[in-house]
């Protein structure tokens, strides 16, 4: 399993891996917002956490279609499925998700504090948003894996995956944003939504790979 993780990380940083596409998209969205909204610093700092979360969510969805498709095109997916008797296929999927998250989504989380400055957010809010992104974005990858597995045989499945997956990611978005606001706005709680966010990630870490493994097993042709 460790070898699969290392291989996927290597692939994402080598030429054509597309690890930076998500970060660049994230950057582009965040940088454009102040121009669209106008130079109202109070407004920007108020909507900051939500904008960071929405942009991160969309950037996460961007690279998901390649999660299994690249392996399918060169025949690796057949061998991964064939080895499903030796390593449970869901674990293989989980490993691929973790590698995808480390390679393409973790850079978003690292870039988020810097981009928080663009939104005139205060340090506490930036820290809370980065923390909720760190805990919440794996959940998006796990749901996305199920979508990617369903659409693996479609040549232009990227948009379809986003449409399939987006409704399922809404709870993650809601609790991520409300935890971020809970840290800066006093009456609202931070800990409760944050714990629900963590629970969502743990729950989807089991359900997502299982669903994806099922779809992959029945989707080979």
């Amino acid at each position, binding site marked *: 399993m460790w070898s699969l993780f290392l*291989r996927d990380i290597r*692939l994402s940083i*080598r030429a054509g891996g597309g690890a930076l596409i998500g970060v660049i998209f994230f950057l582009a969205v965040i940088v454009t917002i102040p121009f669209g909204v106008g130079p109202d610093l109070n407004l920007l700092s108020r909507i900051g956490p939500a904008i960071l979360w929405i942009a991160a969510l969309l950037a996460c969805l961007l690279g998901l279609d390649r999660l299994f498709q690249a392996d399918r095109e060169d025949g690796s997916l057949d061998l991964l499925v064939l080895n499903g*008797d*030796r390593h449970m296929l869901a674990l293989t999927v989980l490993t691929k998700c973790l590698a995808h998250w480390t390679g393409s989504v973790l850079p978003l989380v690292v870039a988020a504090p810097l981009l928080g400055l663009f939104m005139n957010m205060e340090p506490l809010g930036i820290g809370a948003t980065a923390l909720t992104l760190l805990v919440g974005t794996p959940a998006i990858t796990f749901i996305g894996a199920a979508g990617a597995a369903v659409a693996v045989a479609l040549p232009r499945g990227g948009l379809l995956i986003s449409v399939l997956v987006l409704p399922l990611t809404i709870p993650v978005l809601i609790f991520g944003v409300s935890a971020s606001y809970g840290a800066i706005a006093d009456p609202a709680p931070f800990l409760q939504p944050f714990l629900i966010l963590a629970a969502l990630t743990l729950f989807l870490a089991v359900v997502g790979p299982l669903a994806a493994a099922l779809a992959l097993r029945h989707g080979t042709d």
Partner: protein
Amino acid sequence: MRLIAENLGGERGGETVFSNIGFAIDKGEALIVTGPNGAGKSTLLRIVAGLLPAAAGKVLVEGGGEAFPTVASAAHYLGHLNAMKTVLSVEENLGFWRAFQSEPGLSVEEALETVALGGLGHLPFGYLSTGQRRRASIAKLLVSRRPIWLLDEPTAGLDKASEERFAGLMRGHLDDGGIVVAATHLPLGLEGAKALRMGQVL
């Protein structure tokens, strides 16, 4: 070890491609599957590997023991695609499959020497020619141990010398008590192999 297929039927998109195919192969035996294009050779191999559901019948392996209880766990599948990443080096590709598939066989260097690619292991897989890619893919059969080799057009793109070397590899595998099932149009140089001719559809 014994690989058995009973009354296999195959479908593609709801159309029956073949039906009532049966065979039993003991260890040390090879089965060469021939037939015209569209006769269902690749479909048969994918069904045997368990990558496609069988429309009828079943495939089972007897005497695989602890290590190889099912066909999927006992088989190498070499399809039309090489299952190698073009941006990774040949060594990285083989090293990955060796670690991932467990039951390690030859080391990566030894396997590359065996297919006469010694010294090319550091190159990205994408820089190799078609025949060299196929040979690297054949080296994948050697880096982890599996008693059953399911080969789909294994010699496509190979030159004469490589074909003979590959025939030698297959004979070595059979002498070790392995099983080979190969779909091919070209003679593979295996004497005494069983033959299965897949005919016209029904």
